[in-house]
């Protein structure tokens, strides 16, 4: 069974996620992009686990999903706070720390 397509798909997903993270100004969409990044990594872990017959990769994938859940919780909380403060979820409004 060829495994290369899984890794390629994972890489494509990662690239899409990264691009989304860079170009989107909407905080919700950025969180979405981060999910994509995490899941592409999970895909790689699972594929690698299958490829070498090791369970470590799958354990890592579960770990990743847990972290993703926690991250989304915090991220959404931040987004809500931002919305409450500036009436928008646009990250352009988060330039208060500019030097």
């Amino acid at each position: 069974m060829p495994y290369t397509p899984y890794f390629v798909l994972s890489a494509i997903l990662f690239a899409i996620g990264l691009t989304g993270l860079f170009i989107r100004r909407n905080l919700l969409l950025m969180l979405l992009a981060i999910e994509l990044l995490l899941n592409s990594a999970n895909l790689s872990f699972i594929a690698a686990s299958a490829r070498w017959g090791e369970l470590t990769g799958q354990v890592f994938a579960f770990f990743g999903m847990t972290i993703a859940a926690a991250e989304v919780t915090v991220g959404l909380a931040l987004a809500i706070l931002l919305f409450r403060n500036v009436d928008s979820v646009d990250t352009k409004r988060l330039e208060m720390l500019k030097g």
Partner: protein
Amino acid sequence: MIPLAWLVLWTPFFAAVGIFFFLLHRPQAAGWVATAAMALSFFFSLLLLFRAGIGREAVESSVQWVALPALKIEFGILLNGLTLLMLLIVTGVGSLIFLYSQGYMHRDPGYARYFASLSLFAFSMLGIVLANNLVELFAFWELVGLSSYLLIGHWFEKPEAADAGKKAFLTTRVGDVGFLLGILLLFGWLQAGGEGTFNFLVIQDLVKGIHQAGSGGAVSLLTVAGILIFLGVVGKSAQFPLHVWLPDAMEGPTPVSALIHAATMVAAGVFLLARLFFLFSASSFVLGLIAAIGVLTAFFAATLALVQTDIKRILAYSTLSQLGFMVAGLGLANPQAGMFHLATHAFFKALLFLGAGNVIHALHTQDIRQMSGLLKKMPVTGGTFLVGTLALVGIFPLSGFWSKEEILATAQQTSPLAFILLLATAFLTAVYMGRLFAVAFLGEAPKKAVHDPGWEMNSPLVILALFSIIAGFLPLKEFVPMEHEASGPFWVTLLGLTVGTVGFVLSLYLYLLNPALVDSFSENLKGPRRILERKYYVDDFYNALIRHVQDSFAHLCDLFERVVVVEWGVNGTARLVRFTGHLLRQLQTGRIQFYALIFSLGVTVLTYGWVLWNR
């Protein structure tokens, strides 16, 4: 005996501290405390004299002051004849002048401060006299300079007085640098030889040993050290070329001039010469230099005294001249004569200054041209002043005659040139003192109501006058024993006496009976007169030196400070930081995406590099 000596030293110190802390606002009490402390100190010195006797072996006692592995400094006392003599002079003359000050400084706003400083001075001076090692002596030497500064500038609201204090302090400091270097050189050399010490007696033994061994290198080192230490003497005893501060120091209160700038402090240099005579006499070159400086100062200060019109300045130049005599005596290898002259000079010069103080107190002027006939109006002052004058001129049998004759005899035996110059100085001394006495005390009596001051100012004069008369018969010389007593032929004595008498009488005649001759004389000699009035241009030379050398150097330093330190160093650093900050600020956009991009680029580059590295 040793506890007594410690008491002599510390009594004035406790008076000074007590006044500074408790009595600054109770002047009357301050004056009496200071005077009583001084008198007590004198009493202890007398006890010491009776216990120890004159000319006994040296007694030493000390406590450890600094104890480092390579450096041990003691704080101690060295008692011998020389010490006893100086103790008696300082505390004896000091007591009288403290008493006199109570009258002279009456109602002065700084009365208590004055007495505190004077006590501090007495303490420091006694410290110099009693010190048993060079470091201790140097510390007290500087303390004396400090108290001298404080007292010259006592009336500091007067700019001349403040300037004179500064001048005295800075000028003596020039000499003291040499002194300190000399001490360090001597110590370093002894250290290299295995025995690093500052103790006088130990150094004396070492130097004696070296002298007997006759090593050339050691002698040349002793020569250098001797010259350097002599520099300190030149500063403190106001010898040429560092004499310029003493005449200006007359801005201080007159009792201060009497005690510090005539009788004791300026004599500290001579005392140091006598204390370290073993060191100076190790090199004939140093002795020659000392003699030359002494004779030169004696002569040239006497010429300057001829044209002064300020009564205190005449006496100041006279002091310079007599100090020159003492230094010359030491330099001509006769410490006994030098110290003898120091002792007699302390009496009659203190007397003269206090007499001048009485006159200034009564007339409120120091210009002798505004004085005349004071002898009739102020019989006590005038009479004692005459005694002091005659003693200074060296009339038989007053004290100055005996001591001056000793020095002249020594000079006659060693150096004809020194003898002639000193003889000329003696003549000039008689002339300027005759002039002072004739102008101020003889002639027409003033119309104003002028009278002698009260007992506390008169009694010191009388006592000092008494001592000026009899000091020549006191066994003062035995305090400083010598192996070979110098005694010149009788004609030297006669010549010295004649020169003094002729000068004095001539001067009286000229200024009293024939002033027209004096006027025509000074008319015809305008050039030399001008040189004398400009004090041989020494002060002008120093001023020019300061203006051209020191000021331009200061200007250079100022420029360096402004341009290099401030402009480049301080402002430059600030500008560099600000510029860097400006550059780095461009990176802080505040956009999360930008940071994330940089972050991922960084991770990518690092990962890629890591992969390549491990291939």
